[in-house]
């Protein structure tokens, strides 16, 4: 198992696509959490929402502002990451190469899960570091005090961001194992995250009660609720306090475990052709 993890690290670490995803996540987060709100802030002076807008950019709020993207666009990037980690083995037909060297599929799969989770941890830590730096810059520019969140808040935020992005990445892994490829899983994953989730919450849930109830069990709304509880600005895509943080954490963890077990089982059961 440790050597399988080493193998997986060799495969993933040199992959330009992963680093590109990380760069995109970084740029999008900084742009939408800091750059655009900041430009909007200096554009219109003393408007009604501007004090609240500035608060969200200051160090005290950086955790919530940074993880605010995980219910939708960071989630989408995490899905792509998961698909690339697992689905490429189908695309390149490398499963057969791997499984003739190491015939234990559960072991190989477990190594993949570990490395996927390490990748999303790296993502979340990088984003938090960048968010902290950006918020410090905003504070400096606005002569605001550098009030940092407590270590406990920081750790909770990091853990929540990690849980959410890993859950999405495992959705990507699951889709790629189920569909044995790369292109279709990415397409379907993105349609779910970027279109269906929106339609459900904006169009369907207000019309039908049972869909509104269903929302409480879906991964996206629970991710939105969890980051809302951590101070992500309501109004960011997908962020809204539909359920409590405890409920959201449980549901997200259940999806994470479910996707993982289901993918592992499918990979173990099926022929490698």
């Amino acid at each position, binding site marked *: 198992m440790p*050597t*399988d993890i*080493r*193998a*997986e690290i*060799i*495969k993933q670490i*040199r*992959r*330009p696509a992963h680093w590109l995803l990380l760069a995109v996540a970084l740029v999008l987060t900084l742009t939408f959490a800091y750059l655009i709100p900041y430009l909007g802030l200096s554009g219109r002076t003393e408007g009604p929402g501007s004090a609240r807008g500035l608060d969200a950019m200051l160090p005290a709020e950086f955790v919530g502002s940074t993880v605010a993207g995980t219910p939708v666009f960071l989630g989408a990037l995490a899905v792509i990451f998961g698909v690339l980690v697992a689905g490429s083995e189908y695309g*390149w*037909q*490398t499963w*057969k*190469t*791997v*499984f*003739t*060297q*190491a*015939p*234990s599929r559960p072991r*190989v799969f477990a190594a993949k899960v570990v490395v996927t989770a390490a990748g999303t941890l790296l993502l979340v830590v990088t984003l938090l570091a960048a968010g902290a730096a950006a918020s410090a810059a905003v504070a400096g520019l606005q002569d605001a005090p550098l009030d940092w969140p407590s270590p406990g808040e920081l750790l909770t935020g990091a853990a929540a961001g990690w849980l959410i992005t890993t859950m999405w990445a495992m959705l990507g892994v699951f889709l790629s194992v189920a569909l044995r490829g790369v292109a279709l899983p990415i397409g379907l994953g993105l349609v779910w995250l970027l279109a269906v989730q929106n339609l459900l919450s904006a169009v369907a849930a207000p019309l039908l009660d049972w869909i509104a109830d269903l929302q409480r069990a879906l991964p996206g709304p629970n991710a939105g609720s969890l980051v809302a509880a951590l101070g992500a600005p309501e109004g960011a895509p997908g962020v809204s306090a539909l359920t409590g943080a405890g409920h959201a954490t449980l549901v997200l963890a259940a999806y994470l475990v479910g996707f993982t077990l289901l993918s592992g089982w499918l990979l173990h059961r099926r*022929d*490698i*052709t």
Partner: protein
Amino acid sequence: MGGMNSPVETTALTKRYGDLTAVDQLDLTVRAGEVYGFLGPNGAGKTTTLRMLLGLIRPTSGSIRLLGRDPGAGHLDRVGALIEGPSFYPHLSGRDNLRALACHAGVGASRVHTVLQIAGLTDRAKDRYNTYSLGMKQRLGLAAALLKDPELLILDEPTNGLDPAGMADIRATIRRLADDGRTVLLSSHLLGEVQQICDRVGMISDGRLVAELSVSELASAGLRIVASPLTEAHECLGALVGADHVHSDGEALYLDAPGDAAARINAELVHSGLAVHELRVREPDLEQTFLELTGGGRRAD
């Protein structure tokens, strides 16, 4: 108990895909130390059989023993394989590909260096896999198959797509590996290839093993001689090798004799004052045998 003497043993091995029986009640036995050629036309079931041996696909029924072990944990510890063309990580170098696979296989990094040398890839080991030529990819596949220093090598059409020099190169490598005492099970649809490097051949058609032959058995060569006058040449040769061993079709004489007898027979005919227009060693009739046994070779799918 074929156990250790039969590194590969299958009993009534069967794989069905819906209505199609890809492998049908196959009893295959490969003996220790031999190079066994698994010969059959496209779609005969070669790859399916080898994938089942390696645990990549599950048999519908039947049983498998590799190196005396039932499928399960550790049954591929001393088995190396190359299935249906090489497949590697395109963004990694040849060496990094092997390093990753060595980690999966649980073998030391020093082995990577060794197999690169055996495969003749050391010079290009640090180049990315997607810059490799087909021949280099194939050799990397062979290198990966050797990582575990296997007792048994399972190679699916290892020379597929290579030019003649590349083929000769890979065949020589395989032959060398076999001479080191490894057992090799190799699939091919090339008769000449199987004849060159195999000790025994199993012919598969429509998922069934239709014949098993030793290559030396098949390789008894004959001579085809055109000489005039033909009847006198016939008598002369009859006296020389025995009348039973000479046949005439009216144009040429066919002689059961080893190829290295050609010079002596030529001298004998010339000495008797006959004109020898043509004398040639006939290729062993593997092709004919193959086509007869497989009913023309192609299945209707």
